[in-house]
């Protein structure tokens, strides 16, 4: 089964052209070129890819691990069936 970390990494490699060796659970998003505004945009991509609904409240997610935990919590709360559903890449993803 594909893990949340692997699916998040796939998004970052595809949309941000980041090399896999930079992607670790403790990697700060800032170090990957994703600041607080970039995180908002990233979360939209995650919302589409994971088919979850993001709460409207702002959230601090300094590292990749924080994003993984946040997404896993939402998946559990919202009862999304499979974490291995194919990553959707709708056209809305930023270019």
């Amino acid at each position: 089964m594909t893990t949340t970390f692997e699916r998040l990494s796939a998004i970052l490699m595809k949309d941000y052209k980041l090399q896999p060796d930079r992607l670790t659970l403790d990697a700060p998003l800032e170090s990957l070129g994703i600041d607080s505004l970039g995180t908002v945009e990233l979360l939209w991509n995650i919302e589409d890819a994971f088919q979850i609904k993001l709460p409207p409240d702002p959230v601090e997610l300094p590292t990749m691990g924080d994003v993984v935990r946040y997404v896993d919590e939402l998946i559990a709360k919202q009862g999304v069936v499979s974490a291995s559903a194919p990553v959707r890449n709708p056209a809305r993803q930023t270019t």
Partner: protein
Amino acid sequence: MRRVAVSGIGVVSPLGNGAAQVLANARAGRSGVRKLEIPFASRLTAPIAATASFDDGVEFDPGKARMLDRFSMLALFAANQAVQEAHGALSDVDLERAGVFVGTGMGGTLTMDGGYQTLYGEQSDRIKPFTILMGMHNAAAAWIGIEHGLRGPNMTYSTACSSSTVAIGEAWMRVACGQLDVAIAGGAEAPLSPGSLKAWEALHTVATMDVLDPAASCRPFSRNRSGMVLGEGAAMLVIEPWDRARARGADILGEILGYGQSNDASHITRPSVEGQSAAMQAALRVAGVDRQEVDAINAHGTGTQANDRTETAAIRAVFGARADQIPISATKAMHGHLLGAAGALECVLSLLAMQHEIALPTMHLQLPDPECDLDYVPNIAREDVAAQVMISNSFAFGGTNAVLVLRRAGRESPGGIGSH
């Protein structure tokens, strides 16, 4: 006042990228106007534009690209090229005395248009978080300042189609009066969004498409002219005091002698002979150049009925009988109308034309117009035109007219021509 040299040129345009390529294409009369191959083209009456050969995704890494509207990317690309060509102009300079002056008419209109499409077209609230930062008119100048660490004035001018002439002129003033030691000055425009294309169409100023040859759709000063063609691109100059440029052994590409402005104060779109001629006269006065010394002109020459007729009369009003002897180039026939970047590109073309002793052609001039009866260098570049002084005209909706006075750099050595 100090003499001001141009020591670096950067261009990304429908005529190519870099001074050499742009000059070669302009000299050969090649048009950068083409049929638009975008889905939205089917909704345009005249689906043509002058597009720049510039791939956002190749020139900028995705992390940065997602923060930049195309107009900022074009600006940065041209500015970086100009700085590189200026070979050390930003070295050993007090960065607080180094400024950025950018003209743009429409700023980040592609970003704003995309936002509206999301909001109204897709009925989604997911407006990109960077929308404001990408769409604001001063984004391009800000990014140039960030990229090169320039801490002096960081200015953006938006006076429609004269924006970058104003930007270069204002930069010239700051350098000439001693406030700044170096400036990056020019313009950038990326106006080819669906909303912008449609709005320009609604204004009834864009050319009808030449069905047989879309590249020949813009026909300045020709009796059968039907309007302007929108274009995208950026042109940037590095300017610095003449003595500094000489002292560091820079390759001086030309000199800015001055610039003048006027305001029509009459009609929001209709050009005025009085306003245009007043801008030319003001520029000559500021530059301390007699009208007899002007050897060639880069016209605003949009290809609209109103502008070309008015500009012809304005040139006559300034130069009198001598107007017939002055070669006048309307290069928008080839590169389209870059709006806020047009003046900067035409300033670059004027400097290059003088440097290479040519007068650039006014292409697609098919039918003489009795109301446009000057020497427009029709359809083929003229060689062996040893122009020493040129003016470059930029006029605008809103009535903000601006004119630059430029001088050729001496070929034999920097500063080889008489000081001014």
